[in-house]
């Protein structure tokens, strides 16, 4: 009897084990740890210099003890140490907003390195006034940092406009970049477009016509193959229209994106869309105006052939107010919009990734554009949002706060120099935007003749850090 009991127990125990295994199976799914956010303690920006009447503005969201900054002038060859020494010294002032005029003819870029162990949020902008003989107009751009791939839409190498690519190596080892171009006829065979070498701490300027001559509209992708390379594209008119502009880097092709920062009063607005994919893209367009969505019957859907760049004139029925434009495509595309309010200058609004901030809007940009107005255009991304706008002086002292709601179907245009917006506008140097939902922001610096558009990005306080784990026992 006892033995029989034992036999039954053996089977029951085995069965119980299996039941436990079945019950706990769900619990055995592996949960991987995701990476967090890392403080950006060091930022290096390359400010391209467009003309000999240029200026650089640099600052940080907050000043911390122990922050360090340095500036270095870069050109195709090594720049003599004494050149621009005073101008560069002026930029090496951590803890405050600085501007410095750069008047050299040989310097192609200025590299700014800012280190703050607590993370300051360093930004810099380059601005320039172009001589009439060279197209005229004003150009402002955020000084970029390294990107794996930088997209520029609206590049030209024809009698209409000419672009030049500025490649800056901010690292201490040689960098290598590849360039690809798309035209209205398809992918362009780029001459010597691969393996472009840039020596450490130098800058190299390449006229786009050397890569592909006679193209009215091009899209350019600059891929960093090796090294710390920063790409910028400067564009100036030749005959049809006048003016100049930095072409801001657009976001990488996507199925949904927004081109924000289209200012009011523009007479000539050309949408430039590139489809690098192998299938024709069917794109739906939604225009988000000041008062709501603008219905434009003949501009609702667009078609862009595979591996082609296509330009579309934005119809006048969109109105003259500022707006943002949302795109939805069945293929990955990216776009920019060339805006020419007058015959004297033009600028580019581009598709960018929506961010909630903080976003620094520069007011003090330097002499070339000091006289221009300062308007910020905000287009919400996925939902309506509330924006806090805080003004600061040179030393980061708050000058007042304003708040605005931005509904989902509206584009908000704020004149930052308007009296009464802040408690005090005296010595207004920069503005910080903070939204509770992601939005697209762009600064428009404009007067009756000139215009510059600067798509804005959140200051780099943190960066998504990869999940890093030791493999096995961390010994190979």
């Amino acid at each position: 009897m006892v033995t029989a009991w034992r036999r039954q127990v053996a089977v029951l125990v085995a069965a119980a084990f299996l039941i436990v295994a079945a019950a706990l199976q769900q619990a055995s799914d592996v949960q991987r740890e995701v990476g967090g956010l890392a403080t950006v303690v060091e930022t290096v920006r390359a400010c391209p210099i467009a003309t000999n009447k240029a200026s650089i503005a640099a600052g940080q969201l907050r000043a911390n003890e122990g922050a360090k900054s340095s500036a270095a002038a870069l050109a195709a060859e090594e720049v003599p140490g004494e050149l621009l020494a005073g101008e560069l010294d002026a930029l090496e002032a951590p803890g405050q907003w600085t501007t410095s005029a750069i008047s050299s003819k040989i310097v192609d870029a200025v590299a700014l390195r800012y280190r703050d162990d607590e993370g300051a949020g360093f930004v810099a902008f380059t601005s320039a006034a172009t001589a009439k003989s060279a197209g005229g107009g004003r150009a402002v751009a955020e000084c970029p940092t390294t990107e794996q791939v930088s997209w520029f839409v609206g590049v030209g190498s024809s009698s209409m406009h000419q672009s030049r690519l500025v490649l800056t190596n901010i690292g201490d080892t040689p960098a290598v970049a590849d360039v690809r171009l798309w035209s209205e006829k398809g992918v362009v065979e780029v001459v010597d477009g691969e393996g472009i070498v840039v020596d450490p701490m130098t800058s190299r300027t390449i006229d786009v016509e050397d890569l592909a001559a006679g193209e009215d509209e091009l899209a350019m992708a600059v891929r960093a193959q090796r090294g710390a390379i920063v790409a910028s594209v400067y564009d100036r008119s030749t005959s049809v229209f006048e003016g100049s502009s930095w072409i801001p880097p657009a976001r990488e092709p996507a199925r949904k994106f927004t081109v924000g920062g289209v200012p009011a009063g523009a007479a000539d607005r050309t949408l430039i869309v590139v489809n690098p994919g192998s299938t024709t893209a069917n794109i739906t367009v939604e225009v988000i105006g000041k008062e709501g969505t603008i219905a434009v019957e003949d501009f609702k859907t667009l078609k862009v052939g595979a591996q082609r760049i296509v330009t579309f004139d934005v119809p006048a029925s969109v109105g003259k107010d500022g707006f943002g434009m949302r795109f939805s495509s069945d293929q990955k595309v990216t776009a920019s919009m060339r805006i020419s309010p007058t015959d004297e200058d033009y600028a580019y609004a581009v598709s960018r990734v929506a961010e909630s901030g903080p976003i620094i809007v520069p007011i003090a940009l330097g002499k070339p554009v000091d006289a221009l107005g300062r308007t910020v255009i905000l287009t919400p991304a996925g939902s309506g949002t509330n924006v806090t706008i805080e003004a600061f002086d040179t030393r980061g002292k708050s000058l007042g706060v304003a708040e605005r709601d931005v509904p989902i179907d509206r584009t908000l245009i704020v004149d930052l120099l308007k009296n009464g917006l802040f408690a005090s506008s005296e010595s207004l140097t920069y503005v910080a935007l903070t939204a509770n939902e992601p939005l697209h922001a762009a600064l428009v610096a404009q007067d009756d003749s000139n215009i510059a558009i600067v798509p804005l990005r959140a200051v780099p306080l943190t960066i998504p850090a990869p999940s890093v784990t030791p493999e096995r026992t961390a010994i190979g």
Partner: protein
Amino acid sequence: MFDEAEDVRPWLTDPPSVTAVLVAHNGMSWLPKVLSSLGAMEFAPTAWHAVDVSSTDGSGQLLREAFGPERLTYAPSGTGFGAAVRLALAEAPQSDWIWLLHDDSAVCDDTLAALLDEATSADDIAIVGPKIREWPSLQRILEVGITVAGTGARVTGLEPGEPDAGQHDRPRDVLAVNTAGMLIRRDAWCDLGGFDTFLRLYCDDLDLCWRAKRAGYRVRVAPMAVIFHAEASARGNRPVSAGDVHGSEARRAAMFTLLANTSLRSLPWLYVRLFFGSLLRFLGFLLAKAPEDAADELYAMRAVYARPDRLHVARVSRSAAARSDARSVRPLLPSPWLPYQHGFDSAREAFDAVLRPETVESGGRRTSIRRASAFDAEAIEGTSSQEPSFLVRRPWLVTAGLLGLLAVVASRGLFGEGYLSGGALLAAPDAASNWWTLFFERWHDVGLGSDATAPPYALLLAVFAIPVWFNPGLLIALLILGAVPLAALTAHRFARRWCANRYARIGWAATYGLLVVGSGAVSQGRIGTVVAAIVAPIAMGAAIDMVGNPGWQGGLRTGLWIALAAAFAPIVFLCALVLLVGLAITGKRQSMAPLVLALAVPAVLLGPWLWSRVVHPSRFWWEAGWADAGIGDTATTVLDVALGRPAGPGTAPAWLHIALVLLGLLALASRRRTAEVLWCWAVALVGVAVVVVGHTQQFSLPGGSTDIAVWTGVGAIAWLGGLAAASVVIADDWVTSGHVRSVSRSTVVGLVALALLAPVGTGVWWVVRGQAEPLVRDKLTAVPAYLAERADQVTLVVDGSIDSGVGYSVVVEEGPRLGQEAILPEASEARQLTETVQSLLSNPSEADLEALASRGISAIYAPADVDDELARRLDTAPGLAPSGSNDPNARVWLVKAESDVAEPQGSYLRWLVASAHVLAILVAVALTAPVRQRRRQW
């Protein structure tokens, strides 16, 4: 007519006088027959004299009755053989020849006559010895003259257990003959001064004959003279009494004789060789569980090497008496390779004993001997068509050979150049010395560096890799690729304890061996599971012995085997704990202490390596090799669990095991041999418990991988092995009891077919799939060759992507080898490095590079198909210089910051702990020694 003519003995015309000297000491067991044989000789000695060395068994009385008091001398206890002969000759009349006899050696009627035939054949012959046969077998030859090897071993030139068929019946010159039956010319005896009294019992014959040879005499063996020798002293059959020589005397005498008689030119080499050879023998005896012999070896060394003055005196006296060159002896000495040939023969016999235990039996002091079989008879008598096939005669040999052959076939692609690695298996080091170093070094220059305790399996591998010192990969290849036949061998040996039917036994052994490969342990390089599976049957056998015959040595032995298995797969310790507790509950009261000892031994021998697992129980899952085998998806279903199928590649289809589960359940339903079936089920339940618990768990390593899926191979093998054993127990019972005849034929056929499903199906699957993948044989590819070749340089290897996560490892030179994976870095060190790498890949700065350089890292390597964003971030890092790579899709960066790192040295305590660890293992092994008692013969 011819026979009569040949029988004519010339010396009979003038018979020489012979004095026979019989020395006795507690030889009552043999003396009556000896005396009887002496009385039946056709030609008897002219004079007799006996010496009784203080016998206490009545030998003296018997001799007195046989020879009379006037021909008997009583010697005090402790009198050696040589001294006893001296006493006898002092009393005996003068004669031409002296014939020496033992109390355990019987003669034939013509022994003395045959000796005299040879002795009188030439004038320079001074010593003649007979052919000695074993008593009581009477057929096996023990000696036909002797010589001595350079190790001091007595060499007979005979095969172990060689029967006498007249093959050695040619008289010849030899170095020496045994004192049993030795006939020596009286004048030579006087000239040589008799035996050296410093050699009381052993080697006196070798020494005397060697001196005779140097003095210009010839020593001959006369095979036609036969004597039967019981070798009572050598075999320990003689009752012990006060004054008997110490056990170490045989070895001491051998060393002394060799050193005292060898030529001056050979002396330095021989002196050193014997010293170190004795040390090796000492260790060998310990490993062979012969501590008394080991102690004797040390005693003998002390006696010889601590008294060089005695040796000097002996050499001077021998040199003075020598009349011929030392080189004259050389032709009579054996080949210098002979000891190594004997070592090879011993190893072969040991292997034979494992492979075919049923064919091997003890052959007395000489060696094991192979039992005469039908096969042998066939070889001798010619072939017979009636003989059964080889498969029928040697089913296990055929099965083991077949498994070995299949293992070779299944290992296709895993032989040749490169290192065997993949899955959980790391490449073996380039020499066994690396394992020794790993175990003893104070600071491990592995990864981030550590002073952690080396894993005990590194020590075990170091020991077992000694024969393949310069290619320890052979040992790993043997274990991994030969896992199936090795596990089957130990399983078969274990099954002999509980399964009488050879076919059932063989079936279970083959099934068990194939379960190892079916679990995926081989393909996944799970060396821990493989070794545990090979050792487990031996450990269980030891446990059964311990329970059957409770004693501390049984407990120690069981504990040692458990420790060996647990060193490679710690989960074995927990399984053993459960089973031994079960034994304690159900077993005899006197088994309790051995059971506790069996558990305590692994706890002591495995030291901190096991203790750390008590503190961090999840690490019990971490076997030898990588904890994270990197085998991808490790999800298993409940069906997999029930059918004993672990996760990962290389596992046999689960349905192959259905039959085992069914048969196990059927066995449980049977009412036969219930206790054994229940114990098999107990093992199975422990196994399935391991599988179930492992199925629901993950574990992490400090400074290492997280969420590591548990490998449950050990549990799966125990689960299915236990079920298979339960069914084999019933099958064995059915066959041996005849119950099988009462079962219908179709039922029997069906059950056999069911039982064969697992082994046959797994075997076919095994051969078709092979054992490779993820196991491979390849070059080391942790880092590019030029990085690996930089001495003492450290490379940070990063893999993965910014979006999905990055893994990193720190590689010194060409990467870690087996054993080093267990060296865990300090958790804080690993955490800091993780933060540095995260910072480097997020927002690189010079500070990050300086932090890397401070840890000695001089390069960063991203293997092929490196993530673009990861590469870009490293490209932008200040202080990193891109460098060439072996693969265009891989990237290398060199750290510009100077690495000025002083390597820590670690504590001397680590070395002491390691030494104590080794000592503890040696002591434990030595304490299990009573398996072999002191070897009386050397």
